[in-house]
């Protein structure tokens, strides 16, 4: 196992982590502020990717596509919040899960009905394709480095937004005491719509960025959603800081586990057995990590409501 491979895998883990952070930050905000479990978060991821693919195909500009994807996801989020989610805040978590699961089905079938089930085509633009040399000689795709940069920028932006603006103050107030902030004369309904749309926009951005790397198709959001839930449970539900740390932890552990576990088992097993056992264990690794963390910190690393 050479040092270059290790460095490259660490960057891969970081890249997966920043992408997960974009998903998880919206999810954790919505849960922290409104107390809502939103399973349909992955649908906004898909909406972002589809709109980006379509806009990029028709205008030829990837940046325009990215902007359109995030905005469309935000718009979809706002509409869904006003039409459906608003009625769920007072309901039990089970009702929320049922309703947002229905939203997943509606979004997926709607998308299939509109665009068919074959994947759409979306690739990174020419100026972001190709690879650069890393210290140590390995080459790394420019596009993945860009995703890391975007993730870092968004994390910094969110930090500034939450800790240094009036909106952020209201979000934090909403997290600690929902009734009180309403009593203070703040339009809580508008705040909720805004937070929900912000979360949806971040998910849409994640979907757009990843869509160019993977494939833009119906149901692309759900696997990521599961990881995002793991992230916010590890990080502490409602905490942006927790989401960031949890995302990077999950990203790095998952990536390194996938590579090093099969190699580890290879020392005392036949190659095909080692691959089988190692891969199976690697798939479980982040859930084991989650279980261990919850055993010691039942509220997650940074509980919002301590």
């Amino acid at each position, binding site marked *: 196992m050479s040092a270059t491979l290790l460095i490259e895998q660490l960057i*891969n883990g970081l890249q997966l982590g920043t992408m997960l952070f974009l998903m998880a930050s919206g999810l954790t905000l919505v849960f922290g502020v409104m107390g809502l479990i939103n399973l349909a978060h992955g649908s906004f991821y898909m909406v972002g990717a589809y709109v980006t693919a379509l806009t990029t195909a028709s205008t030829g500009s990837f940046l325009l596509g990215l902007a359109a994807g995030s905005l469309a996801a935000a718009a979809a989020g706002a509409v869904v919040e006003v039409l459906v989610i608003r009625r769920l805040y007072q309901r039990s978590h089970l009702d929320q899960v049922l309703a947002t699961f229905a939203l997943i089905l509606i979004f997926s079938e709607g998308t299939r009905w509109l665009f068919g089930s074959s994947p759409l085509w979306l690739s990174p633009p020419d100026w972001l394709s190709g690879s650069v040399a890393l210290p140590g000689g390995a080459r790394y*795709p420019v596009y993945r480095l860009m995703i890391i940069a975007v993730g870092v920028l968004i994390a910094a932006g969110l930090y500034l937004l939450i800790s240094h603006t009036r909106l952020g103050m209201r979000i934090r107030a909403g997290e600690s005491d929902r009734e009180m902030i309403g009593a203070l004369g703040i339009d809580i309904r508008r705040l909720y719509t805004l937070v929900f749309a912000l979360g949806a926009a971040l998910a849409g951005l994640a979907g757009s960025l990843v869509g160019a790397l993977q494939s833009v198709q119906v149901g692309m959001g759900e696997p990521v959603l599961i990881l995002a839930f793991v992230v916010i449970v590890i990080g502490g539900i409602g905490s942006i800081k927790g989401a960031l740390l949890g995302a990077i932890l999950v990203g790095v552990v998952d990536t390194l586990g996938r590579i090093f576990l099969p190699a580890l088992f290879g020392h005392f097993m036949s190659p095909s057995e080692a*691959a*089988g056992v190692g891969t199976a264990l690697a798939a479980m690794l982040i859930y084991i990590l989650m279980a261990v963390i919850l055993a010691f910190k039942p509220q997650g690393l940074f509980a919002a409501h301590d």
Partner: protein
Amino acid sequence: MNKLTRAGLGLLMTTAVATAQAEEVRIGMITTLSGGGSHLGVDVRDGFMLAIDQAARDDIEVLIQDDARRPDLAKTLSNEFMQRDEVDIMTGIIWSNLAMAVVPSVVRQGTFYLSPNAGPSALAGRLCHENYFNVAYQNDNLHGAMGAYMREQGFERPLLMAPNYPAGTDALAGFKHLYEGEVVDELYTQLGQTDYAAEIAQIRASDADSLFFFLPGGMGISFMKQWQNSGVEMPVFGAAFSFDEIIIQAVGQAAIGAINTSEWAHDLDNAANRAFVEAFREAHERTPTLYAAQGYDTARLILSALDEAHPDDQDAFREALRAADFASVRGDFRFGPNQHPIQDIYVREVVEGADGKPTNRLVGLAIEDIQDVYAEQCRM
């Protein structure tokens, strides 16, 4: 009340019609028309129905149901087809795990099943049955052919990659069976995985001289796009499942240069194939995939056998199927003793087509008259 009477009358009438056409042949198709990988089912259906429409016979009724890639649903649908609709022939299943859930009980109960795609090893060997015909391939065929081809082309250190599930491990086993040499490493990914950065880094760090992978559906699309941007220079090989016309359109330029094995190619030069590709393009405004070709061949095999006998005359109909007396779009086609094809496997390369979009081009023959290794386990 009035409504109910009318409904009752309607029901009576349909029963009457059904009795009147006692000689009618009913074909039940269970295939994947929604969810992940539904383009396979759509193409099997479109290819199949093209042949049925071309035949223009009024004594054939085809019932089509969507299994959504769920084994339990496929099982329920097959029971409905057998008990309620009393179909004579069943076909359509794409995925091997669904085929394993459905086929054994269908053929045991005396219904014919013709597979237009799935070819799990058990049905070719231990569980083979006189009423089961596979018109596509045994699953190992295309992978094994690629093993033989890469050996012949002088690659000495291939690295293999597949998802960690039965068809994935079978694919690599099939490859190694005919490659007959050392492989550098075998990477197993998770089924449905979309990010391959970790695997690509590992491939880069290895000293392999070539990559063979089996990543069907969306997995292959994601991998090829990431592979192109990784800067790793290594020839890429796979079976046609990762390089059908629909997948390479979604992959785009990244697919160019990939070599893949298939039992059929849209530019294969024979009269039946030329007519098929032209008719399919006209009807659906796209180039058919191998799945469409398999659906078409399945329907034409059924039609050829129906000219000889009705499925109610089981022995005669079975003999007619075994004879495989139809012009396959693959050229030569015949059944082995386990009623799986013995056929040539071709090599195709993904090239830039006339319209600038990637398409497959026939390069040559990978292996002649390949037969699966499970035939000897079959006692019929």
